[in-house]
């Protein structure tokens, strides 16, 4: 089962926090409040990020690594911990395997070598390794700075290795926590909206699982896993996937390498889109269905980064004839010959509970009374679990040991070159949400529109002024945006968001090199150049 191992409140009582590839101050502001309580309670905070973000300003140490060198820093930490004897030998022997292979694999990552490859001073890596390994409690929290790379899974493994090395997992206020980007990223996966999993993380290729769902739904089910989102886009390109239903997504603007995404979406024989508004993706559809907003016009549940399932209730009626997403699918199923009866959110949830063991104990009544419950929750007397993997500390070990994963450093797919000498990394800001479908219409006193953020040194070198409109070019395309000077970037690094794509199509620039296992594109690293316009103008 995949989910954050700790609860939000635990970070308030931890001793060391590695915030890795995450600007939680802007992108997870609720969680950041819990994190700040931890800082106020004395926790030492390391912000590991190529940018000196607004989160980093709260940190004891900003670890400003070069984009795509996370494994270098993590492996060097591991090597230093072992060299100094700070590892948790007892935990390693009790609950893990493959330590020797790991030890051997990190051997080349000396502090000096790591400094050369990542740009982080060896003394800082030493200090972070010492603080993390010798702390009584420590947590690693990460976001897309870890996962939006061509080797995102390896990046995650390199952090898990650090927790295994030190025993900082499976205990109160010690653990591994990916912060989720949408209110229900966790729940979408938990519910089986994945190509290889039924609800409750039950693999579709395990026959017993398939038989269980075949019996419940009285039908034969496909025995092999399907395609993930990236795989589906590729299959569309080959004309193997020819009909698509998009529910509340705007891939035309959210996918890397927009021109390619648009081409394959246009090539579909049939596209139907359900959304709140006529998004640029919906404009390509053959049929568009008006949907209710998930959080205020629908009944149901959502699951947050601490695995807590919470009730959401309809407070407003959707406009016009717009309807709940799930209810629309109920009707479509009926039209297509599968009558699931009258739609009712609680009835759907109870069907899920009957099929997904970690959710079995979560009745709507209990969720309401307890203000949400954290999975796993196997029956109605189970209180849910505050943190995961406590089994690793049981004597004798409960279940299989966990293996260290050997991971190799692999720099960004697109190297810097004389033609494209700047590294562009993309991300989000506080005021806007992804492609803006849900935030465009709201005012914000802080919003400043899309910019290409550069440091003063680079701007001076390129003879560019603050606010000057420039042309930004990658191997895939070019866009125009105004320059914004910032002291959060070092020379050679540029930053943009993809919030304002109606005016600035940042994903024209990004590369769709993807991690073969997660299907996630390398939004965090492409190569660009910035050109002065022939006739300089202010944006």
């Amino acid at each position, binding site marked *: 089962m995949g989910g954050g191992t700790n609860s939000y409140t635990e970070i308030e009582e931890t001793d060391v926090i590695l915030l890795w590839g995450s600007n939680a101050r802007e992108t997870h502001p609720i969680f950041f409040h819990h994190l700040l309580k931890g800082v106020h309670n004395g926790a030492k905070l390391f912000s590991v990020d190529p940018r000196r973000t607004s989160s980093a300003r709260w940190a004891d140490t900003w670890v400003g690594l070069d984009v795509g060198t996370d494994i270098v820093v993590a492996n060097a930490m591991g090597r230093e911990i072992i060299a100094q004897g700070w590892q948790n030998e007892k935990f390693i022997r009790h609950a893990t395997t493959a330590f020797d292979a790991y030890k051997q694999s990190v051997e080349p990552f000396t502090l000096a070598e790591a400094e050369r490859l990542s740009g982080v001073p060896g003394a800082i890596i030493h200090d972070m390794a010492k603080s993390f390994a010798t702390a009584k409690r420590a947590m690693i929290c990460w976001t897309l700075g870890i996962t939006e790379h061509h080797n995102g899974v390896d990046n995650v493994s390199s952090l898990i290795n650090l927790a295994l090395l030190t025993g900082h997992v499976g205990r109160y206020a010690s653990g591994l926590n990916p912060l989720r980007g949408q209110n229900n990223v966790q729940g979408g996966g938990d519910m089986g909206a994945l190509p290889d999993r039924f609800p409750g993380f039950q693999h579709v290729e395990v026959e017993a699982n398939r038989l269980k769902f075949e019996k419940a739904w009285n039908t034969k089910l496909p025995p092999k896993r399907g395609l993930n989102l990236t795989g589906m886009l590729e299959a569309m390109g080959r004309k193997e996937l020819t009909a698509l239903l998009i*529910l509340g997504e705007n891939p035309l603007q959210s996918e890397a390498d927009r021109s390619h995404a648009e081409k394959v979406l246009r090539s579909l024989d049939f596209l139907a889109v359900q959304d709140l508004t006529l998004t640029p993706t919906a404009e390509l559809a053959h049929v568009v269905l008006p949907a209710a907003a998930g959080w205020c016009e629908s009944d149901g549940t959502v699951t947050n980064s601490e695995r807590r399932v919470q009730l959401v209730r309809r407070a407003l009626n959707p406009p016009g004839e717009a309807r709940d997403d799930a209810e629309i699918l109920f009707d479509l199923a009926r039209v297509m010959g599968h009558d699931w009866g009258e739609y009712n959110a609680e009835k759907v949830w109870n069907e899920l509970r009957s099929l997904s063991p970690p959710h079995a104990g979560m009745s709507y009544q209990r969720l309401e009374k307890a203000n949400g419950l954290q999975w796993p929750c196997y029956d109605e007397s189970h209180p849910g679990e505050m943190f995961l993997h406590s089994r690793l500390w049981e004597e004798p070990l409960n279940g299989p040991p966990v293996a260290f994963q050997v991971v190799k450093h692999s720099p960004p797919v697109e190297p810097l070159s004389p033609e494209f000498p700047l590294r562009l990394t993309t991300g989000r800001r506080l005021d806007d949400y992804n492609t803006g479908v849900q935030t465009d219409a709201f005012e914000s006193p802080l919003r400043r529109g899309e910019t290409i953020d550069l440091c003063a040194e680079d701007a001076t070198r390129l003879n560019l002024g603050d606010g000057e409109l420039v042309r930004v070019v990658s191997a895939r395309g070019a866009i125009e945006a105004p320059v914004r000077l910032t002291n959060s970037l070092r020379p050679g690094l540029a930053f943009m968001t993809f919030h304002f794509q*109606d005016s600035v199509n940042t994903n024209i620039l990004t590369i769709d090199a993807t991690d073969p296992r997660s*299907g996630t594109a390398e939004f965090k690293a492409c190569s660009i150049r910035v050109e002065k316009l022939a006739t300089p103008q202010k944006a």
Partner: protein
Amino acid sequence: MINKKSRPGRPRLTQPLIREQTGFREATWEEALGRISTALKANRAQHGDKAFGIFSCSKSTNEMNFIAQKFCRQVMGSNNIDSCNRT
């Protein structure tokens, strides 16, 4: 600077839309769902189960995501379903 404060948000959709040669026209739910049903059945007959997929939504409820994967698997016989939880 552009877009200092609010931007003109796209208006909410209030009716199903069907695309014709000249652009979108409003339709009833019955007609829109019928159109989708016909297209999906024809696609399946012509290209098979694997020629269909769903992009599901990480902002929507658990119930909707459960129903979306049930629709994909039970009604369409396809495991091609994923969410934006990869980006």
